[in-house]
């Protein structure tokens, strides 16, 4: 990329020679109006709005040098006609004129012509007020029209492109931005043109119509109001909205969003520009799936169970009941009889205080963010240890980058990674997609590997073997090399090829790509996360062998479950490690161990914050029923909250200021967008209030405990196991006075400051530091020219966030190559099939309630390979039964040719097909039988 000099309206600037004239002129602070050109899309030159006069120095044919005039200046020869600036690349010495009469005449002409078939319904158009056509007409338009108004073309409207997107064909200027976005960026070629001449218009080619997880982005980049969303249809005018910076919490990408509010109500969600996270895009889940913020039936006041009924109570009363009962249980049975579960969507501040409450005040390590469902994700420490280094920016990656996607379906698990990874390929990187089944990302891959289910470990060992054969030098501070060598010696490539169904040559090709990469990214998802370190550590070994640990633009990216799953692990809401991954002497119970402990009476009290185990795991109900005391803090009266003794009204992401950590360990801040309901409070404040109430109780514990314990425990008929005798407070609780002092946070910023002080890795990540990552001085809709080019995306004045260093980046980090032991579920003749559970983007998730996406949640199905189905005599649409060691499940069969033989694929998280009921662990083996009608 060479730098060259061009002249735009008399201003000389130096630009890279890969730029087009529109972008180059921007650098010279000259605006060339455009409609069809968009900086993120390839230029097509369809609208002719960007016509400018362009000249080049005249070259002497003999010397190949520019000819000079009498003043020693190059002679400029103008092109005889105007040139489209968007499709013209800059060249050395180029002269661009954007303000001549000729150019103005062309611009006037294009606008007058575009408006001949435009309905001029700005007053009722949702784009009005932020519409490039309005703006360009004001600035470059002729101001009048020679066109006969009654000759305007008319189409029926609205025309639904899908249930989310409306097309107004009269307003469309046929720039094809939407078509190109779907084709080139999203890889969902669902839009196209139909008809010719005046009837020329956009159609959806797919069934169901506009079948794409990124459809909402087309409404942002549409330069007119032709594409608008059903979600924001006629809700408000653009200038009436108050924009609040926020984050999408649905998946681990952590997209930056803007909540556009009016009258304390969410009107729409828009993307906020962050090159390192979501660029200027968000997926439809982020855009349309935020109606949960204003769900009906929100909890507005604390509830306390009186006479078997949950009844409204004051905060004082509720806190008093909590403190008395938790202290009583603690005094009687020790902190180990208490446990806490917290949701992974909650903020770092909530989670940090939650684990402090349990570890410091209650003396318990029984903490988890999961709910004990078989087949849930293991705690992902490898992803922190060998995660992508600080300074990683997928936007910059291209040539020299290799991405290995292993056991992941980014389109469903973390949709925005689809766009980011595809962009790396477009910019010249290699992408290897390895999965047991085909995914949409396969189409963009430079190589796909479809291994047989349950051969992941062997495939990875084979790759390691091939890579280690070429590795001359492994990084310093590496241990476990001998163990790995031993394991790799036993790995036979031909045996792996046979087991996994992959060609040896394919494995060798993948290894070559990995070996050749300057930047190596490994993205792994659900299929790896359920197995935990036994697979992810092997992925990390690939990085260690290549020496790509602790470096920017290299490392692991785990597609964790939710927006703050990484933050929850960092904050230590887990039984085995304290905040910042500090090992604990004695680990507490995992969620899965809590339920038997509760049934056995060993666990007596629980505090659930934003966690609904009853909904995700039915057997939890009996365990929760058996507890002496249950506190649930949530935004609605969930199935779990209905069992509680005290229910506390919490808040959601829009209702308080807080920070969240995404998959790449970037800490970002969301702001308060709406007033909370009545008596509900930010989650961290509630945790603090509970802690303070408990500390008040501590002083009185000696006097009050005995009576309370009899009441509470006796009330549930479970006294008499003699726990009173063994009072074992397992913690090293600081003296009550010292602890009391540290529970006096007034603002959320103080909690964040404490996190920065106490959690290694978060050092320096305070709210002030986050604010300093802002990209412009003022917040709000863009007043600058980006507005014309980039649709309605918002500049990031709130801050792009700060990355927490990966474990491998710490100065004394060591790298462990020891291969983890295999965890195999042996195949059996009773249960011959492997069950693949697919994580869906659109599933029965409480966060998608009340949104337009509800209708996109598929009905449950059981997918079988064509050969398997034929052998079992199962036709598509027939009822089939899956039986595992844990139970059986019936569903409708779907027969698909491209699923590997020997496995069944079932979508997870659907209420009509609760696959969790038959799962037995990370990998479930099932039998398939057809059900007689």
């Amino acid at each position: 990329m060479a730098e060259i000099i061009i002249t735009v309206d008399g201003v000389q600037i130096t630009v890279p020679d890969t730029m087009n004239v529109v972008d180059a002129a921007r650098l010279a602070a000259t605006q060339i109006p455009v409609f069809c050109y968009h900086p993120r899309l390839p230029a097509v030159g369809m609208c002719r709005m960007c016509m400018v006069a362009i000249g080049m120095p005249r070259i002497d044919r003999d010397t190949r040098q520019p000819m000079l005039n009498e003043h020693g200046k190059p002679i400029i020869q103008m092109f005889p006609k105007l040139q489209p600036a968007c499709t013209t690349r800059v060249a050395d010495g180029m002269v661009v004129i954007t303000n001549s009469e000729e150019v103005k005449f062309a611009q006037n002409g294009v606008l007058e012509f575009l408006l001949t078939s435009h309905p001029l319904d700005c007053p009722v158009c949702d784009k009005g007020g932020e519409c490039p056509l309005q703006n360009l007409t004001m600035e470059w338009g002729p101001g009048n029209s020679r066109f006969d108004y009654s000759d305007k073309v008319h189409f029926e409207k609205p025309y639904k492109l899908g249930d989310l997107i409306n097309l107004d064909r009269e307003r469309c200027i046929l720039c094809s931005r939407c078509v190109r976005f779907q084709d080139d960026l999203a890889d969902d070629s669902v839009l196209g043109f139909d008809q010719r001449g005046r009837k020329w218009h956009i159609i959806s080619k797919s069934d169901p119509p506009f079948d794409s997880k990124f459809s909402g982005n087309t409404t942002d980049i549409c330069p007119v109001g032709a594409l608008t969303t059903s979600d924001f249809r006629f809700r408000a005018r653009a200038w009436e909205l108050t924009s609040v910076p926020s984050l999408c919490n649905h998946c681990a990408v952590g997209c930056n969003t803007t909540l556009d509010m009016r009258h304390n109500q969410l009107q729409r969600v828009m993307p906020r520009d962050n090159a390192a996270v979501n660029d200027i895009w968000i997926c439809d889940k982020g855009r349309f799936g935020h109606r949960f913020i204003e769900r009906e039936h929100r909890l507005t006041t604390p509830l306390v169970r009186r006479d078997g009924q949950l009844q409204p109570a004051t905060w004082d009363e509720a806190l008093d009941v909590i403190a008395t009962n938790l202290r009583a249980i603690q005094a009687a049975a020790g902190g180990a009889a208490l446990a806490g579960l917290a949701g992974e969507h909650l903020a770092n501040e909530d989670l940090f205080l939650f684990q402090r409450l349990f570890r410091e005040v209650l003396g318990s390590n029984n903490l988890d963010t999961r709910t004990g469902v078989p087949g849930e994700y293991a705690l992902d420490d490898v992803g922190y240890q060998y995660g992508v280094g600080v300074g990683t920016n997928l936007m910059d990656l291209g040539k020299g980058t290799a991405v290995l996607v292993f056991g992941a379906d980014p389109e469903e698990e973390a949709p925005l990674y689809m766009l980011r990874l595809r962009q790396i390929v477009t910019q010249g990187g290699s992408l290897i997609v390895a999965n047991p089944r085909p995914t949409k990302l396969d189409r963009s891959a430079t190589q796909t590997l479809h291994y047989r289910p349950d051969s992941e470990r062997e495939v990875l060992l084979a790759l390691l073997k091939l890579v280690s054969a070429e590795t001359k030098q492994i990084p310093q501070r590496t241990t476990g090399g001998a163990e790995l060598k031993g394991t790799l010696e036993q790995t036979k490539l031909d045996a792996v090829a046979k087991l996994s169904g992959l060609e040896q040559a394919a494995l060798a090709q993948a290894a070559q790509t990995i070996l050749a990469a300057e930047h190596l990214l490994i993205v792994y998802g659900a299929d790896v996360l359920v197995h935990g370190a036994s697979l992810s550590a092997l992925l990390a070994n690939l990085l260690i062998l290549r020496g790509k640990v602790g470096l920017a633009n290299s490392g692991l990216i785990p597609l964790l479950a939710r927006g703050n799953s990484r933050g929850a692990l960092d904050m230590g809401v887990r039984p085995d490690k304290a905040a910042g991954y500090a090992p604990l002497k004695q680990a507490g119970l995992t969620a899965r161990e809590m339920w038997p402990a509760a049934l056995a009476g060993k666990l007596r009290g629980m505090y659930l914050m934003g966690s609904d185990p009853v909904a995700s795991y039915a057997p939890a109900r009996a365990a929760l029923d058996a507890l002496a005391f249950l506190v649930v803090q949530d935004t609605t009266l969930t199935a779990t909250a209905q069992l509680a003794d005290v229910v506390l009204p919490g808040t959601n992401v829009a209702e308080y200021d807080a920070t969240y950590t995404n998959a790449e360990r970037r800490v970002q801040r969301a702001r308060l967008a709406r007033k909370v309901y009545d008596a509900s409070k930010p989650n961290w404040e509630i945790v603090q209030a509970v802690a303070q109430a408990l500390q008040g109780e501590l002083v009185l514990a000696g006097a009050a405990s005995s009576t309370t314990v009899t009441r509470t425990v006796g009330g549930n008929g479970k006294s008499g196991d003699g726990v009173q005798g063994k009072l074992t407070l397992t913690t090293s609780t600081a003296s009550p006075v010292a602890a009391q002092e540290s529970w006096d946070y007034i603002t959320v910023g103080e909690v964040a400051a404490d996190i920065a002080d106490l959690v290694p890795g978060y050092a320096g990540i305070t709210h002030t530091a986050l604010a300093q990552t802002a990209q412009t001085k003022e917040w709000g809709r863009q007043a600058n020219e980006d507005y014309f080019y980039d649709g309605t995306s918002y500049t990031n004045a709130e801050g792009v966030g700060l990355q927490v260093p990966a474990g491998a980046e710490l100065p004394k980090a060591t790298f462990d190559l020891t291969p983890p032991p295999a965890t195999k579920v042996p195949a059996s003749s009773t249960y011959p099939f492997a069950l693949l559970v697919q994580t869906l983007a659109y599933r029965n998730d409480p966060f998608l309630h009340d949104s337009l996406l509800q209708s996109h949640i598929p009905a449950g199905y059981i997918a079988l390979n064509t050969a398997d189905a034929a052998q079992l005599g199962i036709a598509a649409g027939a009822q089939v039964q899956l039986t595992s060691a844990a139970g059986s499940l019936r569903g409708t069969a779907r027969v698909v040719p491209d699923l590997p033989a020997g496995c069944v694929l079932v979508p997870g998280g659907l209420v009509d097909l609760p696959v969790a009921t038959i799962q037995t662990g990370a990998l479930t083996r099932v039998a398939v039988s057809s059900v007689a009608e």
Partner: protein
Amino acid sequence: MIGDLVKGLATTVRYMFRKPVTIEYPEVKRPVRERFRGKHELKRFENGMERCIGCSLCSAACPSDAILVVPAENNPQQPNSPGERYAATYEINMLRCIFCGYCEDACPTNAIVLEHQYELSYYDRRASIYTKDMLLVPPDQGHGAIPPVLEQVNRTPSPPAQIEL
């Protein structure tokens, strides 16, 4: 002296036989000028449809932020106004209003018009908020046909423009 007295009385007697200028408000109301700006009315078209399309331009133009518009989508079977959009909520706070008439100027459909009603007093502040049903004229008082720009929904595509050479 007597002469001055008679002169004064004569004036009194003269005025006794003239028409009095006092108007017995509220029984009698004084007419206002044609362009007087009083309480707003939301007008209708001749076929009874509301002129207001819920565009909020009046509210954007209002210097005292007196107007609140919350738009909604018309039910195509029973539209409130021509086109796709109408004002579901339309409120004017008469205590805020300074009767400048900017809303009238801004309105693309001549829906909001300041009329001649000037009796605007209230016993409490809330009563100063005039809701849509208080502002909207009765259905039989519409005037004027729907302009083509608002009639687009019902039109079929027209043939290409005639070019005269």
